[in-house]
């Protein structure tokens, strides 16, 4: 079986519209959670979210013109794709490279744009005008757009399993490379803020009026976010041949169903323990080898407690000394884009030997007995890390990343 190396990363978040800005601000303990300007937040429990500064997005010349009526989610994905390909230093020159698989996690897609039509339609009836805003409603639209702009002809998959969508997308793409189905695959995910998710989490009382505080005793819920990550995942032999500089190797992926509840986590941690163990089994490594966990860490009371319970079942007493941090206090919960963005952060952690902190964390919670890397980043050189995502509906996924040999 081949090794699947991450050789290119593109990252768009509220901390910055590119990988290096996002990483630098993340290590500094900054947060991108601020009052949003995208739509009116009157009547919601919070006015905060991690909104991307669209003006800072860097799209190559001509890309935007290729995709009229493109959504914000698509533009995030395109910017991340451009950065990832440039970072990998592997151009798409046609031929076999055009057959690279493209596997993305898809969520709201063009819903933010379509909501304007829905509002008109509900208020004014069938005479309300609107067509262009509906073009990117299907959840695979950003995937189609990335495939269209890059001219890709390989398998094109869109995983839509809520918050684990792009985690699973990375896992599937890496498996295609490991299985020898492709030398290179492009994977990740994108999601954009919209009124639906803002109202939905608001109605569930799952949002904190302040910025999210993962693993903190005072946590009251999540902060929504948006962004995209695109990873270039490459057969290690190809990467070595061309002298590529890898970030990390995708060692395995575990995917399970909780079969418990649509929105509530299974509180004992047993369900998510199965996911972690499935990932470790797929990677062929033991729990003792894991040296850092990039947690799902949404900052809801139930998620963080159940997640820590799962890790306690897997890591036992070692958990108290194991760095387990969440980036959701910094970049918000980016839903279907979250797993890909967090996989990107986990890969950067492996490559650069720095553990990102949990922004917003200040007071320990006995229900979350982990080392959340408080304050600012900490030096560390984890050889094996986990990136966890636990989604609505119990669609759970964990990636195992490791240092490239």
């Amino acid at each position, binding site marked *: 079986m081949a090794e699947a190396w991450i050789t290119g990363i593109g990252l768009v978040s509220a901390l910055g519209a590119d990988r290096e800005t996002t990483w630098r601000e993340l290590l500094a303990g900054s947060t991108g959670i601020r009052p949003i300007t995208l739509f009116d937040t009157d009547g919601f429990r919070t006015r905060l979210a991690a909104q991307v500064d669209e003006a800072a997005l860097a799209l190559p010349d001509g890309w935007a013109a290729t995709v009229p009526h493109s959504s914000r989610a698509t533009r995030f994905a395109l910017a991340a794709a451009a950065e990832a390909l440039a970072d990998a230093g592997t151009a798409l020159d046609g031929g076999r490279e055009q057959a690279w698989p493209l596997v993305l996690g898809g969520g709201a897609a063009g819903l933010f744009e379509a909501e304007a039509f829905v509002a008109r339609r509900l208020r004014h009836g069938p005479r309300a005008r609107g067509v262009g805003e*509906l073009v990117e409603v299907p959840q695979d639209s950003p995937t189609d757009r990335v495939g269209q702009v890059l001219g890709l002809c390989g398998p094109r*998959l869109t995983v*839509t399993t809520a918050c684990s969508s792009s985690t699973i997308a990375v896992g599937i793409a890496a498996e295609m490379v490991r299985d020898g189905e492709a030398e290179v695959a492009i994977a990740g995910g994108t999601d954009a803020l919209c009124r639906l998710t803002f109202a939905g989490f608001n109605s569930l009382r799952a949002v904190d009026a302040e910025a999210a505080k993962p693993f903190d005793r005072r946590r009251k819920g999540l902060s929504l976010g948006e962004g995209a990550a695109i990873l270039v995942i490459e057969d290690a032999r190809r990467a070595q041949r061309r002298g590529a500089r890898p970030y990390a190797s995708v060692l395995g992926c575990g995917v399970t169903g909780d079969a418990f509840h649509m929105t509530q986590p299974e509180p004992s941690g047993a369900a998510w323990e199965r996911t972690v163990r499935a990932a470790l089994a797929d990677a062929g490594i033991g729990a003792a080898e894991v040296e850092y966990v990039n947690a799902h860490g949404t900052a809801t009371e139930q998620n963080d407690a159940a997640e820590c319970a799962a890790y306690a079942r897997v890591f036992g007493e070692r958990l108290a000394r194991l760095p387990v941090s969440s980036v959701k206090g910094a970049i918000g919960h980016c839903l279907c884009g979250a797993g890909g963005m967090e996989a990107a952060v986990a890969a950067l952690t492996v490559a650069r030997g720095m553990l990102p902190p949990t922004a917003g964390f200040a007071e320990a919670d006995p229900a979350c007995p982990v080392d959340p890397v408080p304050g600012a980043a900490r030096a560390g050189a984890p050889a094996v890390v986990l990136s966890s995502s636990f989604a609505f509906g119990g669609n759970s996924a964990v990636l195992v990343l490791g240092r490239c040999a």
Partner: protein
Amino acid sequence: MTEAIFVRSVGAVSHAGTGVAALRAALAAPDWRPAPGLARPDAPPLPVAVCPGFSTKDVLPPLVSRRLDRAARLLAVAAHEALAPLGKPLPWALDRVGVCAGTWNAGTSPLVEVLRAVFLATPEEAPPAQFPSTVANAPASQLAILQQLGGPNLTFAEKQVGALRALAEAGRNLLHRRADAVLACGVDEGDWLNAEGYARLGALAAPGRPGMLLAEGAAVLALSREAGAAPLARLAGWGSASTPAPPYLYPRQPAALLAACRQALERARVTPAAVDLLVCQANGSPELAALEATAYPCLFGAHRPAVTAPAERLGEGAVAGALRAVVAVLAVSGAVLPSWAPPSHLAAAGFPAAAAPPRVALVAGIAGGGSAVAVVLSRA
């Protein structure tokens, strides 16, 4: 493929009715015609092949049914039918049974209800019970919760080919031993706003204009590596490819559809000449018809397998891919010989109607945006 994957059982809810028997009866009647029509609150009906008389009675307790949205109910009923022949308890540990679903529009109706509150009332009035059903993975997740299935739970959004993708990925999960059995499925709900969106984009049939009839329903194929006592068919291969195109258009060139078919046949280790039933996509779209009319003569050369086009009458959608796979399974298992006339664009190219039970069926499709998936189902 080096290892066999078997279709153990199937279940379906479609415009033909609830249950595979209703689907078989419709397929066996050459003159069976749909009676589509999805009501809108303030405008004429739209061309959607909804599921007439659908009910969860005898399958779900009323209190359980009430907390599910329509797409989840449709899938629950189809899965109930597929699971019944496998025995109770199932012959596998429940956390080794997965779900791979494809959907085009699951979650739309609850989405409209949440947005109705936001736009016409206040955000605080958004119904919290509806929001979890707005995620497209809700039907597959609800199915796992209902049946306590703890294996991999995946949902794919790939418009018209979402369920064919789910079938292929179910195969991948079985070959990688992530599960011992997987329910591969497709599900779509009939929702007026969703249908109106496609009508506005000019994709639906209208008086004087050809176009799609949208589908509502759910179909489930239960897959495992073991044959069991009476397997219906083998999932012999799958393939996929894409052609760059905007999300709302079919590509003009058939390259992706051809590549997907060739990969699927290669994986199944059969030649195009061995295919004796093509379950094509033909959904009323002239652009798709042109694509198929170019692709299939190129794929098959002088060979002309029988062809059937269920989506012409049962409607198009992610669920249509799963229904087409069920039709293929029913055909290769000898349960029914599809009697519907071939679509005109393939009949004109010499593709006949089915005259004898097939051994090998090819089910293929391409989505707006250019992603194509094909699967091969053969006699067990």
